[in-house]
């Protein structure tokens, strides 16, 4: 037990802070469960949204929203993860030329700090150019593109998913002891081999944390979905969208995610269906939780047999 008064005060503050955090999280989860669980049914999870989003009870399902969230997360991270890991390796293992390292560092901080709606707006300006209509759709014969598609939104999602991947990986790579690098060099291994076989494997848990944070950021984003995917919540995806020959068209089309579904069906949006909103929020939370646990589990590989 700490003896000094200042120590006791410090410990007290820590206890209070920790308790407040736990209570807050518990209340939010409980609230979501209580409110949302009632809505959740097989039909809700696998159905398509109905025009009845405006009326309680007949609002249909959230399957397209789940698929949409999955798609922007998968495509966004498919870009953000390799890029982010590369940047992290550059910032820790190379740092040459110095100006580039400094510039990258600042850029990452900026991206981390700027709200996603700013990037969404910027993306709109870029992707609406006619020659980029192959990742969305042309707008009549105006020579412009809609700039609203899974491709467009995923590209901007990659941007906001990048900083957490970089920062987490960077910290993890710095945590790999220099003795390990020296041991590899002393065995006649080059820098690249050392990074691939020693540094990155040693940093795996931290890199996984970065992916988890990035996934959370992308799955939770609304602004980019709103502007670059379209608020097409009532729009059911075309029949057979999952078939390979339809997939390209589907990915160039508008869509929705869980976040836009929540916005729409909540009393704040055009719907007045708090039930489905809570249900979707609960699903979103569970999905992110599962991704969290799975990634952290996978990254903590056991070395050999006991």
């Amino acid at each position, binding site marked *: 037990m700490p003896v000094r008064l200042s120590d006791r005060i410090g410990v007290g503050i820590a206890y209070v802070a920790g308790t407040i955090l736990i209570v807050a999280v518990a209340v939010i989860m409980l609230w979501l469960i209580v409110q949302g669980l009632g809505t959740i049914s097989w039909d809700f999870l696998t159905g398509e949204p109905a025009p009845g989003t405006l009326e309680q009870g007949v609002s249909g399902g959230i399957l397209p929203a789940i698929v949409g969230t999955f798609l922007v997360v998968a495509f966004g991270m498919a870009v953000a993860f390799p890029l982010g890991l590369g940047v992290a390796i550059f910032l820790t293992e190379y740092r040459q030329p110095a100006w580039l390292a400094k510039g990258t560092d600042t850029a990452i901080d900026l991206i981390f700090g700027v709200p996603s709606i700013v990037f969404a707006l910027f993306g709109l300006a870029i992707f609406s150019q006619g020659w980029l209509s192959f990742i969305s759709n042309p707008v009549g014969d105006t020579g412009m593109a809609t700039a609203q598609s899974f491709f467009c939104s995923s590209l901007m999602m990659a941007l906001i998913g990048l900083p957490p991947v970089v920062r987490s990986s960077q910290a993890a790579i710095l945590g790999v002891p220099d003795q*390990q690098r020296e041991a590899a060099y002393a065995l*006649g291994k080059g820098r690249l081999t050392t990074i691939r076989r020693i540094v990155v494997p040693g940093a795996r848990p931290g890199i996984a944390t970065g992916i988890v944070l990035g996934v959370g950021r992308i799955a939770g984003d609304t602004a980019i979905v709103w502007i670059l995917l379209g608020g097409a919540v009532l729009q059911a995806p075309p029949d057979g969208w999952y078939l390979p020959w339809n997939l390209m068209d589907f990915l160039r089309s508008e869509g929705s995610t869980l976040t836009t579904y929540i916005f729409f069906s909540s009393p704040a949006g055009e719907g007045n269906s708090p039930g489905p909103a809570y249900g979707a929020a609960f699903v979103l939370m569970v999905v992110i939780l599962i991704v969290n646990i799975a990634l952290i589990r996978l990254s903590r590989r056991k070395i050999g047999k006991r």
Partner: protein
Amino acid sequence: MDPNDDQQRLDERAKRQEWRHALDRSADLRAAGDPTDPTAVAATPPPPPAAPAPDPLAAVEPAPFGAAAAVPAPPASAAEPDPVALAQPLAQPAHVADPADLVLAARGLRVAFSGNEILHGVDLDAPRGGVLALVGPSGCGKTTLLRSINRLTELAPTATIGGQILFDGADVYAGGTDLNLLRRRVGMVFQQPNPFPMTIFDNVAFAIREQAKRRPSRGELMPQVADVLQRAGLWDEVKDNLDRNALSLSGGQQQRLCIARTLAANPEVILMDEPCSALDPRSTARIEELIVQLAGSLTIVIVTHNLAQAKRIADYAAYLLNGDLIEQGIAQQVFEDPANQSTRDFVAGMFG
């Protein structure tokens, strides 16, 4: 390992026995219980010093800022001063019979960190085969000297290095040196055992794997892995547990694993920086035994703070003080009858 290699190693070793000076370590080895080491019984008398041959190393271009200021190391065992040898700044050390038998030599080696010079023009001679012990007070630059040989020093961005390290007569600091090849031929064992967080098998295989263009399978690697683990004296303890995490081994086992890993790269020289300082006496004894065994087929340069250990295992010794090489030569000579007063004080202090 192919059996011819082993035969060759034995031949080389036998050859070296002919000119190597006798070492009084039979008693120690008997205490350590090693009946296999032939040096333990072969206490041949020292061969007569060969006539001083013209030194090819002396003809090498002096280092940019090294040679001029380099103090010639006092000839350790020269009974009568040789005028030719004294006239040359890079004199043939008296204890080496044939200059071609120098596997490593530092010539006017200067190392500074952020302009603060740590080594002031060191001339070190490592004869081929046997154990060379580097001793000296803490902070005198032993580690720095050792790490400059396999060019790890330059990993510190603040380091500046001048002078030469001759490995088989060629300067490793010359342009065009294949760093990775150099570090495979001159392996290193560190003070803290530092196995990779992988299985025991993978630790050893790592050294072999990336060298091959194709990724060899476990089955293909197994004979080599088993061979080096045997040579490192670890095989019997781990042969049933090759897939265990290497970090679950004891400190002494980890250090032997690190030695095995180094052996897997097939080095001609192994640099060891206080390899036993983190280990208990039993593990230390095992590693000393291993070092003596390995010295039969390759050269070992070892930094040690333990003079008793140095006496037990070293064939040659070099004494470093504040970045200057004060004395080097036959271990017995340096430890028991040093030419230099400061060596004498150091040696006395270490025993006292």
